[in-house]
């Protein structure tokens, strides 16, 4: 069989290998789908398509609303079903094509055996040697006149010795050009006029809504979110040193490396502009004081980070570092710390 296919019929072994692989993979996929317990692919259903799948597409993810025969499936299943369908149709086509080729070759063999004179008549004499489909495809897509024959297509003009050939436009290039030109009105319609058209501003609004929902969902899973109503002073060394690290990175440029003050006020004395209780300090760091130039850090620091850095700041009380800035604000008494 193999010898017949390879030598008599001239079918390339790569084609056979591809066909066998395809059949095997397809059979395996069928088995997996049919015999899988239903519960196990529920997991798949629960996975929403991540944004990143849309990275190379042109628009933000459309909102899920699927009419039609695939309506009951998730996006992932729809894509999978579509790909499977295409693979299946391609497989069928290649099987049918193979059958026809084998039949043609068998006919040619029989005619050659019994009525060789008839060969020319049925136009089968050129049948061998067969070239693989990708060789034919390559030649069809490139369509260049071979170098040996190019004398026939040299144009009758020359410029300072430069001559030009009259090769056809490479068909693959032409196809690419047509495809991109066809893409243009489709995309313009899709992006500007269709029901799916999403302006940049609308896409932004959607992004913000989704993100807000995600953040809320996450926060709902977190117990005891720290805020100014329940924040506690931390005293363990780990927390204080973590607070110190944050302080050096974010606060020291304005408040000094030792909290002695600079652009911002001195943090080591007992005078405070916006209150010296832990809850006050926490709130000042979190929301900032825009009029006075204190930045709101809630977009950069997590509540736990703010708690640590606030605790560190209060641990600086009375350290009296050199070059301390003069006191600003009101005297704050120590008993309210806790």
């Amino acid at each position, binding site marked *: 069989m193999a010898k017949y296919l390879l030598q008599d019929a001239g079918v390339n072994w790569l084609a056979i290998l591809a066909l066998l692989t395809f059949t095997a993979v397809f059979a395996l996929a069928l088995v997996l789908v049919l015999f899988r317990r239903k519960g196990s692919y529920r997991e798949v259903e629960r996975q929403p398509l991540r944004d990143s799948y849309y990275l190379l597409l042109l628009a933000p993810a459309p909102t899920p609303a699927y009419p039609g025969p695939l309506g009951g499936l998730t996006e992932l299943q729809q894509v999978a079903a579509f790909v499977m369908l295409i693979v299946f149709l391609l497989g069928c086509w290649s099987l049918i094509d193979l059958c026809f080729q084998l039949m043609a070759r068998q006919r040619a063999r029989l005619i050659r055996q019994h009525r060789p004179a008839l060969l020319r008549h049925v136009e089968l004499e050129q049948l061998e040697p067969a070239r693989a489909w990708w060789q034919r495809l390559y030649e069809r897509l490139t369509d260049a006149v071979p170098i040996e024959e190019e004398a026939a297509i040299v144009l009758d003009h020359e410029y300072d010795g430069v001559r030009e050939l009259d090769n056809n436009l*490479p068909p693959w290039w032409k196809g690419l050009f047509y495809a991109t030109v066809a893409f243009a009105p489709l995309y313009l319609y899709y992006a*500007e006029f269709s029901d799916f058209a999403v302006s*940049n501003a609308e896409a*932004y609004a959607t992004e913000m809504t989704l993100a807000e929902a995600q953040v809320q969902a996450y*926060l709902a899973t977190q117990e005891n979110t720290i805020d100014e109503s329940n924040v506690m002073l931390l005293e363990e060394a780990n927390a204080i040193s973590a607070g110190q690290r944050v302080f050096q990175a974010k606060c020291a*440029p304005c408040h000094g490396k030792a909290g002695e003050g600079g652009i911002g006020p001195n943090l080591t004395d007992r005078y405070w502009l916006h209150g010296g209780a832990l809850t006050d300090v926490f709130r000042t760091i979190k929301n900032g004081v825009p009029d006075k130039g204190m930045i709101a850090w809630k*977009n950069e620091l997590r509540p736990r980070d703010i708690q640590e850095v606030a605790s560190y700041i209060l641990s600086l009380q009375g350290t009296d570092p050199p070059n301390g800035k003069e006191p600003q604000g009101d005297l704050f008494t120590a008993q309210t710390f806790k």
Partner: protein
Amino acid sequence: MTQLHKSPPTAGLEHFTYDNRIVKYFAYATSLWGLVGMSVGLLAALQMVFPALNITAETTFGRIRPLHTNAAIFAFVGNGIFMGVYYSLQRLLKTRMFSGTLSYLHFYGWQAIILAAALTLPLGITTSKEYAELEWPIDIGIALVWILFGINLFGTIARRRERHLYVAIWFYIATWVTVTVLHIGNSLELPVSLWKSYPLFAGVQDALVQWWYGHNAVAFFLTTPYLGLMYYFLPKAANRPVFSYRLSIIHFWALIFIYIWAGPHHLLYTSLPDWAQSLGTVFSIMLIAPSWGGMLNGLLTLRGAWDKVREDPVLKMMVVAVTAYGMATLEGPLLSLRSVNAISHYTDWTVGHVHVGTLGWNGMLTFGVLYFILPRIFRTPLYSRRLANVHFWMATLGVIFYAVPLYWAGWTQSAMWKQFLPEGILQYGNFLETVDAILPLYALRAFGGSIYLAGVVLMVYNLVRTVRRGKLVANEAAAAPPLSDSPAGHRGEYWHRWIERRPVQLLVGATIVVLIGGLAEIFPMVMVESNVPRIAAVQPYTPLELEGRDLYIREGCNNCHSQMVRPFRSETARYGPYSMSGEFIYDRPHLWGSKRTGPDLHRVGGKYLDSWHFEHLMDPQRTSPGSIMPPYPWLLDRKLDVTDLPAKIRTLQRLGTPYPARYDRRALEDLRRQARDVADGLRESGVDDPELAEKEIVAIIAYLQRLGTDIQPESQGTPQN
């Protein structure tokens, strides 16, 4: 089509000479400016890693970067174009250049413009518009020299002995006319004084015109003339016929028509109306095939000559150049897709991308042409083929070592900008963290660039030795039959031959084709008011802010800081509400920027104290440890020059900024008052300078504090159309 007509034997040959001296001049100029431009580029690259290299005001990155781009584009590539055109044009038309005087006026005029650029840009005399930074007197100079070149080009064509124009010359003609249109369109500006002007368009419209220009400067200064050079020098060097005549026709017309439209892809997700952005995207996608038509015709011409490519450094250079062209022109359209652009824009990905084009395509093609021309006009073999081969490898590796770290840096930084913690806050809320992460890659980039530059040094040595060995054939003898009609008539010829023997029609046709795209986009933007929705709260800049803004332009802050918050969660969380087109109507010129080496500044107003800005400008490291921004101590040393203020107010009024009538007489008073307020505030926080109110730093702080404060954040609750 296959039979060859011979010229009528009765015609007899005419004897004439080619002017090789002008080719030599331009060849020397492109080599010299190549060295200079790339050295300045290396300095800029090193400044990113070692901020201490920002030594004086004149050598800060903000002034060096435009110097580098101008030198690379207009000095190195510009002279490269003229070298190639003056060599090939004479030979393709079988005639000497139209006028020797014009040739040398062109040469010296162009070098004078380059010198003017090299002097004015470091002095801070700049329009801030990318690749068009030169101020209006130099703009006029450029226009004059360009017209001289045009007269010489068309005069030579008129005196040709070859009936039909070869494809290279189509590209030269399209280049000439389009650069003329672009240069005039983007330089529409009203002078305030000898070295200061304000553009005719403001804000979004200015941005669109600028990127119509900027994009097509790439197209018609860096691409089409070099395609012309490729069409002459590559088949000559390979001694092979051009692969496909019809391909060159289609890709020529498609390229020049489509290129013009694609400018808005530089403004995706900005305040430019969505429709213009979408046009930019689709025309960029349609550009893939026309661009690749050039690459294919180049590479396929080498069929049957690849054995020569292995041997010949000229062909090697050209092959990599054409390949780099193909890579860059595929990448460009991909970067024009909204979703890819959302990642790439403002990062080093763009910088890497353009350097594949300039170092790979323009640089290596120039080297190939230099190695081709100089031995020929000096009638001597190249001094050392081995050195040329070494140069080839240094150039190739240099491009790779340059580009790869920047791609990596771009992806890394973009990912860091967009990374949120599950709590909904930015993981890298401090912009500096994202800069620190890519500093090693900046160092690698500088390393790649220095390899490339070392290759150029090697080339210059090789060329100098070659020139010393030979003797210039200043007037190369040639002979050709006089121009005559085709004896067989034009029956049965390919239709495009018709226009190939009619340079005027070709010029007109090319002009029409390139005008369509620009007009279709710019006209509605300027004429239809709904494209820029007015915002009542947006007011003109106060005189002090205006002066501060001009200082911002002088220092080139826009080279590292954008002023355009895009509508992404990651940007509004970091910077504040996204920018809207109505906010920029008094911005002449727009300062949206194209690269964020530092954070966006559109919403920086009111974010920090005046004293923070003061400290930060004096020494960025003090407020932002690890910052790579240069310090600007001269802003405190220098007094603000207000002599032009009344003229500035009058110019802006003429352009439509609604200052009250005769405000030019009161502006100075307002400026002094606001400056005193800012200075008093600074003095309270300990700045000790008796003349503080008259110093430049006060003006720039006033401008920074004004930025983006006209609208209130809540006005952005609902999506606008």
